[in-house]
């Protein structure tokens, strides 16, 4: 990977789009890459559309403006489609990941995709099953790694575990649930890759 990879996360306030970008950036750093992770700051309210970003490269990253042409778009909430231009700036060789229970063909139509690669998974259902709450950010993190293989999966899961251990010191069940969610989502996407 010589080039710069830019990722845009779409979600709603409270779904963890910012945390997902931070966790992913951290994992990439742990794997020896250069990275940036930053949220888009606007009117931050629970449920309002939010975006966050990653830049990943083997070389130091000096660019400090907004991500305009992402290589990968991760959509945590499918209800954003239609009200937010989630595929804005995405090239034909881009990758889209959507948290949805709908089939891929329908999603491809909704998103008006051309040649872009599309992965769909019901990350909310995975989150409900493993974490007990509809927090789709960690499963989508697993899906992102499965789809792009920017970072080694085992490396990522170890890094994320460490980070979650600090955040949820008193809730070990939350940590295990999140890790399980990441694994499941990763497997779903790997299967779609064929």
């Amino acid at each position, binding site marked *: 990977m010589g080039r710069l990879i830019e990722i845009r996360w779409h979600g709603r306030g409270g779904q963890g789009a910012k945390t997902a970008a*931070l966790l992913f*950036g*951290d*994992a990439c*750093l*742990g794997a*020896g890459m*250069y*990275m*940036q*992770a*930053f*949220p888009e*700051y606007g009117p931050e309210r629970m449920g309002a559309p939010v975006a966050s970003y990653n830049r990943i490269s083997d070389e*130091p*990253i*000096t*660019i*400090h*403006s*907004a991500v*305009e042409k992402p290589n990968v778009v991760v959509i945590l909430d499918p209800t954003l489609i239609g009200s937010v231009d989630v595929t804005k700036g995405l090239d034909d060789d881009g990758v889209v990941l959507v948290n949805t229970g709908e089939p891929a063909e329908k999603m491809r139509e909704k998103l008006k995709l051309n040649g872009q690669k599309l992965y769909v998974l019901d990350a909310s259902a995975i989150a409900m099953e493993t974490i007990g709450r509809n927090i789709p950010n960690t499963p989508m993190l697993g899906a992102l790694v499965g789809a792009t293989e920017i970072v080694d999966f085992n490396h990522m899961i170890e*890094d994320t575990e*460490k*980070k979650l251990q*600090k955040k949820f010191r008193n809730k070990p069940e939350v940590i295990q649930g999140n890790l399980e969610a990441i694994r499941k989502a990763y497997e779903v996407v790997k299967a779609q890759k064929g």
Partner: protein
Amino acid sequence: MSEAKVKDKAAKGPEAAQEIAALTGNEAVAMAMKQINPDVVAAYPITPATEIVQIFSNYVADGLVDTEYVAVESEHSAMSACIGASAAGARVMTGTSAQGLALMWEMLYIAAGLRLPIVLADVNRALSAPINIHCDHSDTMGARDSGWIQIFSEDAQEAYDNTIQAIRIAEHPDVLLPAMVTMDGFIISHGMEVVKVLPDDTIREFVGTYNPKVKLLDVDTPRTFGPLDFTDFYFEHRRQLAEPIAKAKEVILEIGKEYGKISGRSYGLYEGYKLDDAEYVLVLLGSTAGTAKTVVDDLREAGVKAGLLKIRVFRPFPYDEMAALLEGRKAVGVMDRSDGLAGLGGPLFGELRSALYESKNRPPMKDYVYGLGGRDCGPALIRQVFDELLEIGKTGQVKERFTYLGVRE
């Protein structure tokens, strides 16, 4: 704060001992403050600088620093408490942004006038009105004539490095002036990126202890701080302020070099990027410099001799250095992230034009006021500036001396 800290295995020499961490600009500055371990921090939170003092207050609560943390009711009080503590002989730090720095305004002049080496981290943010929380440089530009040293940072790494060096610069016996280190609001303060962090011991040794010759808490030699000066002495005392500001330049260079020895990262008054043979030069401050470097790279690949001059130290302003670097270029574009509202562009433009007044070979120069209130400035906008510079270089004509970049007219 990031858990992903790894040793830089490929590094040799001073870099080998550093940890590579994923930090936001705010986290990096809070980390620097922890390693500096100041005697007193007095602060009032304000977006986007809140995290700096919030994280630092956790260090205080967890006993990781020996600092006396003074929670105050406003930024005016924060700077007042800093002044009192610094006059008493303590090493003092604080952090703020925008309206917070504006509220400190009268106290900023007092800190400088009393020669108190307070170090302030300012997260650059636009001033109201309209109310806005995003980046521009209006806040610190408002304090540019206050007698404070001003050091701008391009990224989180520089914010960390500059904060550490600012302690030594401010407290240097030839300087003894307060210093503010800035970083761009949100873009740097809230963006997580790779930062090399030096070991605590290395920093503690580098900053040493602060032993002022003159302090209020010296019962054997009682002194008065901040007395009234009428027409008899005020002028002399203010005149004396010009000396340390003039000497600060040498000290900043000396400390920047010494810091290079412990970190592998040396600092000067400015950074030139592909500047030596550049015909078209862009001059600016802060995080946009990093974005501009990618544009310069692209232009170089296309055969255009483009270059960048990033100013690190805005106060004292490196007039002579700027004149020497800019004279003879085909065209110079200046990018100001604040509007001077004086009728001729932004403050950086004014300084650079002034610097070049005596030059025999003055380059054509144009100012671009950009990015106010956090308006994004990506490669396309910077490319637009270079395109205009190429045109100016061809014709030698500057049609308008300043303009606004990326705004709806």
